């Protein structure tokens, strides 16, 4: 083994190592992969060269020459790699270029076994076996020219790229690659050219390559040589952004846009590059935008400026624009504009604003007070709407700082209200409140208690309506109604009384004139009968007049009582006869305990009450039914009740039963005769004694009239 073949072996191992090194250290990207393939092809080439140089015979050497005929492929891979490295896709039609390299390379490899002139025949020289280069063969010369031109092209491209790169790291990378690649290229060119000059030296390509690998390996380790170029990564990243990105130079001319920009605005990238960036703005806002950018120049950045972009087709896009400057020392290099499409957000905001406006308007303009207040005893407002101020006369601030109880005419009402509010979830309540100016108002509040999961009241939400006017009107209406009613009832009473008085009078007059008839001779019995009737009717008239007088006294508050100490049993005894007479057709039951406390009353008046109630009971209950008088001591009173099994009284009438006017109506409606003054006289008498009178009744089941009388008199 001579020194030259050893060099080939070393070159082979270096190529192999370089490939492995990049494979291990570099990232997985096309550039990297291409470099590794290149390394392995070169390694194989060096291996065949090593084998050829120390071949044993001519035939063995010939075989290795054939084996080494893959070298045009290495040229093809070199160009491919170079184009990838400089990002040549933009400047060359990659497909054509590679077609021009790979197809010839494969053709050369495929043709070499048939024409020895392409690869040469084995010759033995001082550095061992090698191939003879037939300088006379045109085909071979063309192939060599092809290889030389491609190698030089690669060198040219790499150098140009290196010179063009501004960015420091990119520049360093370019330098190391140029150094690393140019050495084997120059050696290869020498190898190809020297035979034509008639000189032969040992082939240098692989040696040059092995040496060239050193700076490349260094650059890979130090500058991550075979990572993708930064700007490519950046471009890729920018293109995946959803935001619109526009980079302008210091003159505000567009230098770069991402895919989102061209897609959103409908422009081709080439239509935007070199244009002033205001091209994406509608005309009327351009001035504002330019002004904004001028500001950017002086400051460092701005953000979230809401402006409108205009697409190529005139479509408007709401964007939120942020900008920042890229400076090189003090020199402005570029302006970076990032616009976020906020059309959807804008629409959502608009919808929200509209609905807010709607409800805001509703809450602000409504005449109903709306508030939220705390649940503590005094209460504070947490929130009030303007209508609250209008209703209460306090400003919003005043309301929020005052106690709720301060508004009450009667502050203790709030406590009662609170209890109710806590117990129920929602109450509707009328409240009397005092305005700031001191006037009293009536409000109708619907209050909802907002509770937590444990049922504890957190706060109250209320709706307040000022019903002072309605209340006044309603009050007036009620008063007017009562006045009318009283008026109507008074005239009814009058006609009722007049009827009631005329009826006995009619009898008296009728029977008197009957007795006076000259054309008829009445018998003694008839005369007596008529006189009895006259007597009865006169009594009736007298009672009626006494009733009316009583009513007049009661109304005037002039009912005189001559009170004494009586036992109820005594009183009952003294009217036993009269009661028996009244209840001739009924069953009278007395339930009066003997040990009742004594009463301090006017006996005559009490008798009047009992008799009156009994009369009514008899009048409104069927013959044979039971009428009970019961009495019992209740605290310092005695309660007397008259219970019948009669027709009962309709509920709507019981309330006003003791009102003389209403009773009058009952009679006027054509029920039983009578002035109907009884109950109101009873009421007058009982109340004059300091007692109460009431009725419990059920239609069809009878009535129970009860009254109380005071005990004592000792």
């Amino acid at each position: 083994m001579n020194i030259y073949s050893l060099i080939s072996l070393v070159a082979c191992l270096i190529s192999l190592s370089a490939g492995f090194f990049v494979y291990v250290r570099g990232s997985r990207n096309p550039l990297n992969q291409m470099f590794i393939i290149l390394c392995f092809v070169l390694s194989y080439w060096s291996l065949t060269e090593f084998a050829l140089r120390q071949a044993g015979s001519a035939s063995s050497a010939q075989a290795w020459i054939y084996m080494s005929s893959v070298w045009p492929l290495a040229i093809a891979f070199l160009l491919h790699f170079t184009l990838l490295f400089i990002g040549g896709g933009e400047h060359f039609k990659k497909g054509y270029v590679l077609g021009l390299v790979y197809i010839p390379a494969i053709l050369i490899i495929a043709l070499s076994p048939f024409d020895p002139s392409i690869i040469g025949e084995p010759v033995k020289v001082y550095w061992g076996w090698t191939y003879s280069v037939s300088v006379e063969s045109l085909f071979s010369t063309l192939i060599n020219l092809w290889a030389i031109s491609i190698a030089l092209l690669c060198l040219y491209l790499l150098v140009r790229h290196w010179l063009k790169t501004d960015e420091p790291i990119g520049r360093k990378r370019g330098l190391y690659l140029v150094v690393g690649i140019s050495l084997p290229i120059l050696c290869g060119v020498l190898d190809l050219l020297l035979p034509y000059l008639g000189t032969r030296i040992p082939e240098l390509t692989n040696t040059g390559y092995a040496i060239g690998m050193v700076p490349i390996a260094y650059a890979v380790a130090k500058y991550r040589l075979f990572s993708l170029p930064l700007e490519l990564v950046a471009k890729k990243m920018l293109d995946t952004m959803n935001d619109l990105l526009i980079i302008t130079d210091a003159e505000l001319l567009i230098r770069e846009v991402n895919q989102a920009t061209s897609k959103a605005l409908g422009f081709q990238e080439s239509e935007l590059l070199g244009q002033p960036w205001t091209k994406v703005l509608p005309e009327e806002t351009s001035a504002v935008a330019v002004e904004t950018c001028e500001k950017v120049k002086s400051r460092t950045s701005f953000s979230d400026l809401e402006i409108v972009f205009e697409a190529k087709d005139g479509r408007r896009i709401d964007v939120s624009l942020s900008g920042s400057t890229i400076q090189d020392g003090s020199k402005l290099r570029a302006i970076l504009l990032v616009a976020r499409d906020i059309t959807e957000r804008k629409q959502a905001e608009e919808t929200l604003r509209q609905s807010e406006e709607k409800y805001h308007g509703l809450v602000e303009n409504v005449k109903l007070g709306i508030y939220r207040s705390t649940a503590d005893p005094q209460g504070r407002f947490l929130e009030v709407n303007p209508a609250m101020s209008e209703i209460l006369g306090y400003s919003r601030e005043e309301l929020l700082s005052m106690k709720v109880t301060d508004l009450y005419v009667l502050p203790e009402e709030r406590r009662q209200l609170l209890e109710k509010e806590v117990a129920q979830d929602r109450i509707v309540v009328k409240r009397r409140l005092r305005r700031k100016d001191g006037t009293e108002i009536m409000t109708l509040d619907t209050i909802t208690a907002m509770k937590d999961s444990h049922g504890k009241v957190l706060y109250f939400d209320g709706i307040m309506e000022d019903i002072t006017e309605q209340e006044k009107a309603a009050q007036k209406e009620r008063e007017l109604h009562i006045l009318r009613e009283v008026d109507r009832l008074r005239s009814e009473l009058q006609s009722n009384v007049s009827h009631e008085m005329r009826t006995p009078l009619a009898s008296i007059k009728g029977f008197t004139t009957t007795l006076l008839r000259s054309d008829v001779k009445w018998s003694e019995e008839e005369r007596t009968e008529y006189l009895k009737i006259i007597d009865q009717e006169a009594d009736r008239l007298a009672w009626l007049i006494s009733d009316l007088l009583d009513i007049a006294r009661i109304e005037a508050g002039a009912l005189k009582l001559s009170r004494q100490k009586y036992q109820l049993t005594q009183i009952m005894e003294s009217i036993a006869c009269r009661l028996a007479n009244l209840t001739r057709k009924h069953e009278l039951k007395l339930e009066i305990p003997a040990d009742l406390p004594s009463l301090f009353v006017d006996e005559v008046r009490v008798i009047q009450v009992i008799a009156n109630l009994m009369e009514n009971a008899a009048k409104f209950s069927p013959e044979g039914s039971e009428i009970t008088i019961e009495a019992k001591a209740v605290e310092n009173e005695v309660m007397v009740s008259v219970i019948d099994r009669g027709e009962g009284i309709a509920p709507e009438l019981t309330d006003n039963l003791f009102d003389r006017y209403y009773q009058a109506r009952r009679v006027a409606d054509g029920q039983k005769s009578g002035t109907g003054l009884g109950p109101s006289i009873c009421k007058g008498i009982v109340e004059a004694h300091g007692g109460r009178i009431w009725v419990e009744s059920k239609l069809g089941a009878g009535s129970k009239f009860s009254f109380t009388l005071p005990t004592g008199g000792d």
Partner: protein
Amino acid sequence: MAKKILVTDDELPLRQLVKLNLTASGYKVRTATTGQEGLKLAEQEKPHLILLDIRMPDMSGWGVLIALKTNRKLEKVPVVIMTASPPTQEDEEIRALRAGGVLNKPFSVEELLQQVKTALGEK
């Protein structure tokens, strides 16, 4: 043949008074205590005259009067109204219903007989 007179009044003394006086004067008298009863008797007896109290418990005398005047068999029967109310507007209404006359309570027997005779067309 004695003329038949129907007296409808809820007050016993008045019924008695009218009945005994008219009987004494030679009329045949039937009495009714309620409006309903009065209507029923009127249809049965076909009286020559009806004396009607305008204020009765079960139905107003006006109701009875209207019922009488809208009954084809009874519409010709004269009706004398007995009333305790002052003779004002009611008189107009009675006239409108072609009642035979009005007796204002209290009335004397002469007045009663006079009205009855007039209503029956005897004078």
